[in-house]
């Protein structure tokens, strides 16, 4: 799964991280749709390359700030716990690593990265755990592209 960031000639971030598909495809897994929006994304890149700051896909400061929301205390705590877990994992302290891997998942249950890294230590159970969480998802598994700013700047 590719994630793309656009940076202009001055080193300024034009668009923050978002799915960067290059092909459009819809497939189904477990009764849920998996959608990739590549054609739209590639067209947006081409527009930006041709028009620069004048492209409708070059985000304003307000739109950029809206998309790069401050992280919640729980999200930041989860990240700190995850870093600690990785540290203990490398230091051969599996019990301490487990404690902090689990804490990261409790604090930020929406972050697949924490689940998948933790599940990699129990590969026999990983598939079932993934499928269970996947099927309970209400939001699309792959985030939907939001290429153009909303017309009135509101959510």
């Amino acid at each position, binding site marked *: *799964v*590719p*994630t*793309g*960031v*656009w*940076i*202009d*000639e*001055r*080193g*300024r*971030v034009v668009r923050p991280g978002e799915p*960067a598909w290059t092909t459009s495809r819809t497939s189904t897994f477990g009764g849920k749709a998996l959608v990739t929006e590549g054609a739209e994304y590639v067209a947006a*890149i081409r527009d*930006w*390359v041709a028009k*620069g700051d004048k492209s409708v896909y070059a985000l304003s*400061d307000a739109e*950029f*700030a809206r998309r*790069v929301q*401050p*992280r919640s*205390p729980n999200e*930041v*705590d989860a*990240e*700190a*716990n995850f*870093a*600690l877990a*990785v*540290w*203990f*994992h*490398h*230091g051969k*302290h599996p019990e*301490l690593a487990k404690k*902090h891997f689990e804490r990261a998942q409790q604090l930020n249950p929406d972050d*697949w*990265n924490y689940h*998948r*890294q933790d599940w*990699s*230590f129990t*590969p026999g159970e990983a598939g079932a755990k993934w499928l269970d969480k996947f099927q309970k998802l209400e939001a699309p598994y792959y985030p939907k592209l939001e290429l153009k700013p909303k017309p009135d700047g509101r959510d």
Partner: protein
Amino acid sequence: MDRREFLRAMGGTMMLPATLGAQSASRATVLYDGRAIVLNRATADGDALWIQTADLSSINGFELKPQGACREDICIPIPRPMINGTRFNLSAFAQRVGQRVVADPVMRVWSFGEIPVVRGAFLESRQSPDFSVPDRKGRLVRLSQFRGRKLLVVTWASW
């Protein structure tokens, strides 16, 4: 490469696991911004971590100046109790700037979250951080080498 190998490889590049072992009373490890910084002259007072002031910039890019702890255009006034001779209370600094900390003082490791004011400065400037990665031949490539050209930076993960 399976995920466990990936985790090992990624951790190996960012952090130095060999340093986690028997820790001396003055040794501590700080995790911040994807890096592990080993300090040889740090002291713990409960959960609080005191470091050598000279080590501050290697941890988070801040330097102590007469007007406070400064990083580029940001300066945070520092109350006197946060400094004791050559030592600086890094935990109190974190509290002052709203930075979250998860610590295991027994293992002498402190994991610091992002600094909100630094994130805020990025939102204002939108300047990409300069970083380097090895290319396919192992040569380091810096983002700033591409200044003057439009860039699409793509990362991949399996999910």
